[in-house]
């Protein structure tokens, strides 16, 4: 039996889906209303999953007192109430789809010293979600 722990975080951000490698018409066709040049936003929900083992002294895979400030510092401060295209350097050249946002968040968190990062899952809205895990790397 394997064990993991999943903690939920939230941030709100704006973005625009637009690829410099495509024409205006193609961007419009591919991204539809997400290509609106003024941007739009979401309340993102981020589920961060860490793998065992459980420390017998604490009963924990990781101490949330360490995980929460790490995620706050590495992700939430950089993403919350920001424009992903303008304010996050990685998305100046990469389209901030939620596939790419989940990959970027995984990369920012994988150096967490307290436990092994297994998966980042993001709900962009209540109707869609995206996952990036160890095997995706």
């Amino acid at each position: 039996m394997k064990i993991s722990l999943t903690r939920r975080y939230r941030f709100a951000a704006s973005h625009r889906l637009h690829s410099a490698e495509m024409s205006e018409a193609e961007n419009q066709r591919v991204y539809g209303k997400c290509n609106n040049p003024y941007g739009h936003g979401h309340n993102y929900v981020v589920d961060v999953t860490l793998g065992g083992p459980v420390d017998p002294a604490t009963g924990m895979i990781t101490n949330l007192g360490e995980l929460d400030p790490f995620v706050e510092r590495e992700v939430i401060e950089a993403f919350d109430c920001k424009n992903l295209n303008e304010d996050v350097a990685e998305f100046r050249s990469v389209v901030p789809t939620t596939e790419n946002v989940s990959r970027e968040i995984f990369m920012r968190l994988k150096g967490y010293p307290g436990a092994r990062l297994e998966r980042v899952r993001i709900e962009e809205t209540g109707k869609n979600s995206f996952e990036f895990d160890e095997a995706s790397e």
Partner: protein
Amino acid sequence: MTRITRKVEFSAAHYYHNPNMSAEENRRVFGKCNNPHGHGHNYVLEVTIAGEPDPRTGMVLDLKELKDLLQREVVERMDHRNLNFEVPELEGKIPTCENIAAVIWQLLEPKIAQGKLDRVRLYESSELYAECTADANGAGRGA
């Protein structure tokens, strides 16, 4: 392979304290969860069974059987209890979400009559859950 999942809820009290640590270290490691008067949660448990549907009944496992099993093994043992003092299976363990989920796995795993226990997901709140899954090789035993 088909998976079926049943959800059940229970409410319980706990606090985190390791008698091998000093009072100061307990406070540092466990923070407000170290309050000796305890606190509580509405736990939400999702139990998933994997298997092939029986061709005669179309069921992996009769959900009524699973419901009764969860009532007997989990709800009656943990609902409206203090997990530090009233659940023998947690004795000597810090009753964290990880340890409670592992105990639930060990209680249920040998008692699944049809199909196999595939996943135990225990939500302490909507923001936190621990999950036990079968090993990749299919072996389910051990913590």
